[in-house]
């Protein structure tokens, strides 16, 4: 039998249902793998060994009774921004270091109902603010392909854990590229679903009009299966779309004959690493050979997306993060002279520099006299970006582009220059502003052996088209089953 650590979700389903491996054996193997390699990668903030083993035991019961669903007994990692009842949910922040939520996020409830196994909580940039996971208040996570490089961010732990085979799949969250960019840097599949497809109940808020939970996996089909399990309407999230969940895994088996693939000229610009462009052009030829039609398109307001995003996202964050006041939960400073002083000391000591920077920028943009010039202006430009996509999707079914301008950079390379760090999100941000789905798929390696990602974007609720295009391309490229060794 093939090594269980190399198996995807449906292979594991068969193996478990046929009694070749139990959920408990599988979970133990993954816990051993974490023990063996996480001291190098440092993806996990918390390993929930006891929870995992008891969930695996319950999963084995379900399997024995013939009640297994697609994810029963599948060991997963969860970004530490998703609330898990009684289990620390830190957002990699000093502010929430000891926070144990009194409730589960909707996605966690759905996974538990299916009998999925949680191995632990994964490291991230503090409050999901960053592109390298260097903003974690606890430690840096390393790229499994090169331990001197960043895994991307903010879901860096989620991407690194999947690439290092320390979980079958993971959940991350994506506000401006935080699933797709680390997926790209770690050579895994990552999907930011349509805004409203996955409930945000229990997802610690960063920028509420942009945040969305999504899967990071080693194959397109696994992403489809995990999304099927967590998606769907939830009355506890007022932005959750009341609509049945389509059969995403089935869409992975459709042919892409006749699919129109748009190539936006604004995403193939100076400053993008040559190998990234080369690898994507190669993938486009593969798509063409498989029956897709390539169409040149334009998204003319792309260059304004970063500026738009850093106003809207920080404005929303400054409001969302005002809840951390040292009263209801989280950290409170030890020494203070009065209530105001307690607020300021608590926040000054509890938040890291990037979080403070964004709270400051957002507060400034929303403050008296600046609201129209910044927040309103940015919200108007957001409309122009939304309209760009609407027009483009009249000419094509899916858009193909780079995920990030370069492959993974070195730890420390951009950490002291916030603006430079922000610019690395140039190709992922427009998708969040428009609320459309975006998928990152490994499409090659650069000369240093670092993974390159290709991004596919589709219209609102067109995830099925993304899965069809991505799974065909995945087969056509044949890159699967190449993983960093680490032992």
């Amino acid at each position, binding site marked *: 039998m093939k090594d269980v650590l190399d198996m995807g979700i449906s292979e594991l389903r068969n193996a478990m249902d046929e009694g070749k491996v139990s959920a408990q054996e599988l979970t133990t193997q993954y816990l051993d793998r974490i023990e063996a390699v996480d001291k190098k990668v440092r993806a996990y903030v918390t390993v929930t060994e006891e929870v995992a083993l008891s969930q695996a035991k319950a999963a084995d019961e379900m399997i024995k009774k013939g009640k297994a669903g697609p994810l029963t007994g599948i060991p997963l990692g969860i970004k530490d921004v998703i609330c898990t009842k009684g289990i620390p949910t830190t957002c990699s922040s000093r502010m929430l270091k000891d926070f144990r939520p009194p409730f589960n996020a909707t996605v966690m409830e759905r996974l538990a109902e299916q009998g999925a196994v949680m191995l632990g909580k994964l490291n991230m940039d503090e409050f999901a603010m960053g592109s390298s996971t260097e903003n974690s208040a606890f430690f840096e996570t390393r790229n499994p392909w090169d331990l001197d490089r960043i895994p991307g961010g903010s879901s860096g732990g989620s991407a690194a854990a999947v690439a290092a085979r320390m979980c079958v799949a993971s959940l991350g969250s994506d506000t401006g590229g935080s699933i797709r960019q680390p997926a790209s840097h770690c050579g895994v599949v990552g999907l930011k679903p349509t805004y409203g497809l996955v409930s945000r109940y229990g997802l610690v808020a960063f920028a509420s009009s942009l945040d969305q939970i999504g899967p990071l996996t080693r194959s397109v089909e696994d992403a489809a299966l995990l999304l099927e399990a967590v998606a769907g309407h939830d009355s506890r999230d007022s932005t959750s779309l009341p609509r049945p969940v389509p059969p995403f895994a089935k869409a992975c088996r459709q042919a892409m004959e006749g699919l129109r693939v748009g190539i936006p000229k604004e995403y193939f610009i100076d400053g993008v690493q040559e190998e990234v462009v080369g690898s994507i052009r190669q993938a486009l030829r593969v798509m063409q050979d498989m029956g897709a039609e390539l169409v040149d398109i334009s998204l003319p307001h792309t260059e304004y997306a970063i500026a738009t995003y850093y106003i809207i996202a920080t404005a929303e964050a400054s409001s969302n993060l*005002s809840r951390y006041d040292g*009263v209801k939960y989280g950290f409170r400073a030890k020494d203070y002279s009065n209530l105001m002083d307690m607020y300021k000391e608590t*926040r*000054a000591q509890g938040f890291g520099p990037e979080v403070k920077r964004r709270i400051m920028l957002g507060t400034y943009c929303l403050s008296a006299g600046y609201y129209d010039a910044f927040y309103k202006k940015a919200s108007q430009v*957001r409309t*122009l970006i939304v309209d760009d996509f609407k027009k483009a999707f009249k000419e094509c079914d899916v858009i193909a582009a780079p995920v990030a301008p370069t492959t993974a950079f070195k730890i420390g390379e951009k950490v002291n220059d*916030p603006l430079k760090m922000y610019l690395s999100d140039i190709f992922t941000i427009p998708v969040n502003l428009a*609320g459309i789905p975006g998928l990152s798929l490994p499409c090659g390696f650069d000369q240093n052996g670092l993974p390159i990602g290709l991004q596919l974007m589709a219209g609102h609720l067109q995830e099925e088209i993304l899965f069809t295009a991505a799974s065909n391309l995945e087969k056509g490229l044949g890159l699967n089953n190449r993983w960093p060794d680490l032992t």
Partner: protein
Amino acid sequence: MAHITVEEVEHVAQLARLRFSKDELEEFTNQLDAILRFVGKLESLDTEGVEPTYRAIEIVNCFREDVVKPSLPIEEVTANAPESEEGAFVVPRII
């Protein structure tokens, strides 16, 4: 576009309930200034008459049935508070 001063940064820090040392204030002023200059590029776009987008999906007033459901137990909610007493959050004296 805006050029931000140390005094303005101090004012915004007060609004945001944050505190910075003198060195931090200077560093933040420089960094925020660079970021604001960058985002200032939006000024060059004509957005006259363009409706702002606050939500990227077309969904309004998502109602649900108003059903009484149990809330979280008070002990569990206050268990995370830095200081609580008899089911209430304790804050520094304000009067």
